[in-house]
């Protein structure tokens, strides 16, 4: 058959035309055709015969319950549609379109046949089984055959005649059209109408290249075959009709409330987005992952701590005692008690359940300020077994929490409060001390910030002459500084107390020693000794920093009074401490623990037998680890290494040399030197001493008071000062002999210090009210500085200028001397205006700030700013300073000699 597609307009027009014809044709067929009993009828015939007369009337979708009988009683019930829905759809659809077409038209639903196409097809086909399923197979075959047969309208008409029995007549059957015309129309219909699966209203037209044309042809061929078969064997075909009408639809307006909407907003910042993408680690205390808790919730967490195992039947007065303890620190006390008596609480009432909440209820808390109220509650809980059960126990647990919440400080459990308070305090202090901190850094504060503090340029107590001398000294310094190209001369030279560091816990102690940290140069460690110091008295160590000019960063108590300390350079957090009872300890400042890292406090461990007067970290060779050198009153110079514990090795025993032998060696110089040296060396042995001076055989040791290693000279060479007024130079490799001994002091020497710029010079401070400057080669002092009317307790070279050094006296004055300026007068002196009872015990120059730290016997540390005496570390040229020092010394020597002459 031809499958030539035509334009849709033509098709539509043709369709319209056909519809009318088909409908009328169908009417005729309905009347004419009577299906033979038991034979299948074809849709097409049925539909066409059906359509004309029956349009307006509703067709019944007949099911088994309804039976359609003809006038003569024959059963014309169309079989249920559903029985043969399995029939070939393709064929049905194709052929059914025609039927659809007509039936649609018959129903007045033109143009919508496609949508009802498949349904109708199945309906039409399905109803044509008179005998139910027995003819199902036949029906499928036959329908296919019928589909392929397009040219058999005559056949259909002829078979339709035999189908008349099954027809349901509705009115007049229309007159049958000529078969040929019908056939032609069928063909056109079949060809040109493609049922659309979608059921769209518009006709779907086969395209030129659509492959389904073959399918259409095949289908049509089959239909033709079916028609042929029908014609040949009319007994197998029954014509029946059916009509399905879409149920009535009513259009009803309904109204419903719109769904309840809630609009909520949410804002996400970049931070939230990134946080949700990558959950931040629960690190610092700033990032908290817990939801904000109320005070009670926080206490819930602390409850087990607060309500520990208790003594069960103690009277309230027992609680009263305990309640007087610290309210905010329940954990340690309670937990200790709980460890002591974990089971005692159950012994009283064995009937109590072992439920946890119940157990807690049976115990009493002591940390609440109102023990009686709580006791009442817990006593109630002991009354009945019921109360010990879970629910009631929980209830009272919450009540207890409330009680505790009311009574403890609301600050309990706040994370990070301590750190935050420290931070705020630092900031507050920074504000308060702002101008002084600026001075510390050698910066002038702005005028509007409260004004700069006036320089305290104290006059020496002697009189107006000295004022001039000081002024002259100032002038000299200015010139000297100007020579070096520094601009500080115009400020003048002065000392000014910036602030005083004091440790509250050590208020009753005296400052014995202090040392700046080698790396963090604003960190100062201070060691305190008891005022009446003995081997049993405790000591204190405090670490101060610039962040808190009023209180130490942390401090701790030590079992023995501190006599000396030193920060390590290699491990800047290690603090070596020597104590009055002779023990050595190394503390870790970072750990902030009270216990030392390592300690040698037993004789077996090498503890000294006398107070350790100085400790010093020294690097004995290039690339070697630092060792701690200690010198003590028992005459030992000991080296401690911290590799494994604290191992000691005696470097030297300070044998007491007699005055005669040392002076003999001192006077010799020049070529006889070696002989003298040998003599002095010999003299140190007991035998020689005995021979020469008649002293006892037992060599006495003299107590060492100070030791110093020069950073410039050989690392194995060091100086030791003794309490009998001598300084000895010793080599670590030759521990039993003094290389040189220097004598001249009349009293114990409290400090010996190499010059940091010029190797051969060193200073000593002694109790004989003098400072002496020595040359390493010469066994008598070069220069002597009369410091004052009291013992010189400490001396230190300035790290910035080679000719400057500072000294403290037992009279409470701090003085700055300049070798280049004057040998008899200090450059600058600072005395405590408050009272003279304070001794200044120690001092130390800060390396990176123009500041001096001075310790007093009242337990405070004065931070003194030095004006005009500071050079930036970058500008310090060691050789320049060395030359200055040398020049100064020689000049002075020359002057002295000249004066002597």
């Amino acid at each position, binding site marked *: 058959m031809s499958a030539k597609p035509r334009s849709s307009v033509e098709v539509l027009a043709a369709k319209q035309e056909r519809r009318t014809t088909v409908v009328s044709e169908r009417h005729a067929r309905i009347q004419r055709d009577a299906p033979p009993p038991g034979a299948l009828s074809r849709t097409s015939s049925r539909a066409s015969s059906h359509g004309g007369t029956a349009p307006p009337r509703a067709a019944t979708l007949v099911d088994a319950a309804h039976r359609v009988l003809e006038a003569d009683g024959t059963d014309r019930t169309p079989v249920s549609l559903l029985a043969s829905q399995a029939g070939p759809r393709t064929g049905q659809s194709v052929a059914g379109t025609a039927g659809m077409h007509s039936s649609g038209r018959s129903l007045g639903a033109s143009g919508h046949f496609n949508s009802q196409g498949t349904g109708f097809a199945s309906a039409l086909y399905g109803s044509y089984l008179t005998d139910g399923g027995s003819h199902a197979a036949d029906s499928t075959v036959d329908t296919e055959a019928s589909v392929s047969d397009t040219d058999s309208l005559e056949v259909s008409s002829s078979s339709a005649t035999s189908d008349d029995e099954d027809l349901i007549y509705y009115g007049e059957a229309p007159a049958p059209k000529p078969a040929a015309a019908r056939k032609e129309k069928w063909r056109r219909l079949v060809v040109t109408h493609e049922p659309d699966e979608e059921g769209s209203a518009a006709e779907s037209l086969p395209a030129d290249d659509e492959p389904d044309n073959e399918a259409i042809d095949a289908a049509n061929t089959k239909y033709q075959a079916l028609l042929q078969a029908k014609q040949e064997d009319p007994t197998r075909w029954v014509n029946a009709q059916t009509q399905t009408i879409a149920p009535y639809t009513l259009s009803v307006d309904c109204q419903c409330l719109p769904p309840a909407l809630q609009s909520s907003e949410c804002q996400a910042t*970049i931070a939230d987005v990134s946080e949700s993408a990558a959950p931040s680690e629960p690190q610092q205390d700033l*990032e908290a992952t817990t939801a904000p808790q109320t005070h009670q919730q926080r206490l819930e967490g602390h409850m087990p701590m607060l309500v520990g195992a208790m003594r069960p039947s103690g009277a309230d007065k027992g609680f009263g005692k305990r309640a007087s303890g610290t309210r905010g620190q329940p954990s340690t006390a309670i937990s200790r008690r709980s460890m002591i008596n974990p089971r005692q609480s159950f012994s009283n009432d064995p009937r109590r359940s072992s439920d946890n909440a119940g157990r807690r209820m049976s115990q009493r808390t002591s940390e609440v300020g109102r023990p009686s109220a709580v006791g009442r509650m817990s006593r109630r809980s002991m009354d009945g077994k019921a109360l010990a059960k879970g629910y009631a126990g929980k209830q009272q647990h919450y009540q207890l929490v409330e009680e505790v919440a009311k009574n403890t400080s609301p600050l309990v459990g706040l994370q990070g409060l301590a750190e935050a308070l420290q931070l705020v305090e630092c900031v507050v202090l920074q504000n308060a001390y702002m101008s002084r901190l600026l001075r510390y850094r050698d910066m002038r504060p702005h005028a509007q910030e409260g004004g700069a503090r006036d320089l305290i340029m104290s006059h020496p107590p002697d009189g107006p002459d000295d004022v001039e001398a000081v002024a002259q000294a100032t002038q000299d310094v200015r010139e000297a500084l100007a020579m070096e190209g520094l601009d500080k001369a115009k400020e003048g030279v002065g000392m000014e107390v910036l602030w005083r560091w004091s440790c509250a816990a050590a208020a009753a102690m005296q400052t014995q020693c202090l040392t700046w940290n080698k790396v963090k140069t604003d960190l100062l460690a201070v060691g305190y000794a008891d005022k009446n110091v003995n081997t049993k008295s405790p000591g204190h160590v405090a670490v101060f920093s610039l962040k808190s000019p009023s209180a130490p960063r942390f401090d701790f108590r030590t079992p023995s009074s501190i006599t000396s300390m030193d920060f390590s350079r290699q491990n800047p957090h290690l603090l070596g401490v020597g104590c009055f009872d002779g023990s050595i300890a190394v503390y870790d400042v970072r750990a902030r623990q009270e216990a030392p890292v390592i300690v040698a406090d037993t004789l077996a461990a090498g503890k000294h037998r006398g107070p350790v007067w100085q400790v010093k970290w020294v690097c004995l060779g290039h690339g070697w680890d630092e060792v701690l050198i200690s010198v003590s009153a028992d005459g030992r110079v000991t080296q401690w290494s911290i590799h494994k514990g604290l191992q000691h090795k005696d470097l030297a025993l300070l044998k007491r040399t007699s005055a005669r032998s040392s002076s003999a060696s001192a006077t010799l110089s020049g070529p006889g030197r070696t002989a003298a040296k040998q003599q002095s060396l010999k003299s140190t042995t007991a035998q020689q001493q005995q021979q020469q001076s008649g002293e006892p055989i037992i060599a006495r040791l003299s107590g060492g008071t100070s030791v110093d290693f020069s950073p410039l000279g050989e690392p194995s060479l060091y100086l030791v000062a003794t309490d009998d007024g001598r300084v000895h130079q010793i080599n670590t490799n030759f521990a039993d002999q003094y290389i040189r001994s220097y004598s001249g002091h009349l009293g114990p020497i409290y400090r010996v210090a190499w010059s940091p710029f010029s190797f051969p010079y060193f200073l000593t401070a002694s109790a004989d009210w003098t400072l002496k400057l020595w040359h390493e080669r010469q066994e008598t002092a070069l220069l002597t500085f009369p410091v004052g009317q009291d013992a010189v307790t400490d001396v230190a070279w300035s790290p910035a200028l080679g000719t400057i050094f500072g000294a403290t006296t037992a009279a409470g004055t701090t003085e700055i001397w300049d070798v280049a300026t004057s040998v008899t007068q200090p450059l600058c002196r600072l005395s405590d205006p408050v009272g003279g009872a304070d001794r200044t015990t120690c001092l130390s120059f800060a390396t990176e700030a123009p500041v001096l730290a001075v310790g007093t016997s009242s337990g405070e540390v004065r931070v003194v700013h030095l004006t005009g005496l500071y050079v930036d570390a970058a500008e310090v040229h060691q050789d320049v300073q060395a030359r200055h020092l040398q020049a100064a010394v020689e000049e002075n020597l020359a002057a002295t000699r000249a004066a002597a002459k």
Partner: protein
Amino acid sequence: MADVEATLQRLSNHKGVLGCVVVDKQGKVLRTTCEAAITEQYANLIPDLAELARGTVRDLDPLNDLQFLRIRSKKTEIMVAPRPDFVLMAIQDPKTVET
């Protein structure tokens, strides 16, 4: 706990410090060392500002967080330490020089 109290006391006893206020996350005042009127003012105003500052810091860099906030005015300086659990505020007159 005891040293927290001690530090708080010491802080508020500094010369020039007008007071110290600890406020919890909900805005309730936990501890204060100034008068009620001033406390209330600060407790109402400052935490919001701190939150705004914190938001700004985190908008600039989501991994960052606000640690400390200082507001210096002609007469006073307010130091705020906002934390997850609380906000700590200290008010100081910076012109007062401590001897």
